């Protein structure tokens, strides 16, 4: 199944209504979720608005929000240990 937004080929059905009135699909690359009963402009990769399409390159270049902070350094006591050979 093609993701309508990022054209990834491995999108898949993730859920179905009990009465089978619709199905929900998800894309593991861009996390797009859609329901089968939404309009073709949302469910068909060829009709999805170009303004909202996502490419692999765009995903690679996305800024993290919030930024990931540096790991906290373990406090040193001033005493150094070293292995004796």
């Amino acid at each position, binding site marked *: 199944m093609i993701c309508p937004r990022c054209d990834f080929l491995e999108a898949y059905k993730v859920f179905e209504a009990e009465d089978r009135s*619709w199905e929900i699909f998800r894309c593991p690359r861009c*996390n797009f979720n859609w329901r089968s*009963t939404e309009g073709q402009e949302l469910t068909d990769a060829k009709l999805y608005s170009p303004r909202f399409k996502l490419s692999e390159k765009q*995903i690679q270049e996305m*800024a993290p929000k919030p930024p*990931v902070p540096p790991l906290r350094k373990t406090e040193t006591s001033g005493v150094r240990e070293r292995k004796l050979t």
Partner: protein
Amino acid sequence: MPFNSLRAFLEKCETEGQLVRIKEKIKPEPDIRAAACAAAKMAAGPVLLFDNIEGYPNKQVAMNIHGSFQNHALMLDLPKETSVKVQFQELVERWDRYPIPPRRAKNAPFKEVIIDKNPSLYKELPLFRVNPMDGGFYLSKACVVSRDPETGEDQNLGMYRMQVKDHDRIGIQAAAQHDIAIHLRKAEELDIPLRVAIVVSNEPVTSLVASTPLHYHQDEYSMIGAIRGEPAEIIASERGNLDVPAGAEVVIEGEIIPRKRFVEGPFVEYTGYYSSSMIQAEIQVDLISRRRDPIIFENLYSGLPWTEMDYMMAMSTSVAPFKQMKPEFPELQAINAMYCHGYVTIISSKIRFGGFAKTLAMRLLTTPHGIVYPKFIIVVDDDIDPFDLQQVMWAISVRFRPERDLVLIPNAPGSTVDPAHLVRGITTKTIIDATRPAFPDIPLADASIVDVPPETAFWMEEILKRRK
């Protein structure tokens, strides 16, 4: 009497003619968003309760809970006709009752069903896409509880946009200025997951306070108590050390995965624009507890302003900076920060001396909310009601001297979702001093204002009588 659950508030709205039930079968998309948009744009827009949603038997959706000043007044247990200014003053007074600490409940209806194996958000919630180009189905009105992972203190209850991405995965927007981002930063510095509880469908004061910019060390539950005039009822989460509102419909528990970001968005923010897709933090869900069916799922429609979001945020973004500034500036009369979370903010105050309006505007910019959101600040005298835009525009028209009263502060912190940014998160703060110049500034050339005839109030009543 304050309301202990969303259900209790819905009953009140029904009694007051502020609830409309949609019993016919509707589609999750586009019907829910379109109806919610309509309700918020109507005069005295009612709460909507959808009883029959295609594919979601035994589930209901509630929209537009805060979506008019009438609903807002009912939330505060005031007559629904209460004016905006009176609601502001009421909240200002109730704020002073802080802290009223929460009361611990022994049981909660949402503990009746506990799903701790393979929980599925798709199964438990009647999800729907809020706006057509959103990246997925959003929890746009749920509250998130977290604690400082280092100290175990400073529990926070906040409202952040959350995108359901999989059965048990939820993206969360933890913008750097929000309290949860402080918790997340500490957890990530220590490389440990941050435990969270997501609370869905609350009594309306809980949502109001969760979206109010309190100080980091202030306790939201004690503020809910202050606003309600009665303690909030809380109960412990199933896992971790978190307190959640006992009246909730559904509680989703999990942890934010440390040091990783995943594609999220876009989503229509309070600006009425889609924010772009970014990589954001993500929650691994491990437990869902909920009421027995039919649950009521409350969500927020955020579209082209004004929507419910504007009504819900109108007072919280106005009262919080007012209370934070008032101790140092007793001259303050009121603050109206209800336009796009306070991007445009109007301060009304007595003026201590020449130039004082600029002092007030700059102080606003150092309040927790004011650091980022306001970019256009109008200061008016105490004879202007900041909630009456006709009066505000008049003050700008006749008291603002562009060559002396316009201040621009470039390269200042700004909202990251402001569509008008040049650099994301950076803005120019604009101050419009529309007050009468006070000594030692140069006075206005024509300083005599005409009075409203004292008989005006009498004649208003007379005209009203004859109009019927």
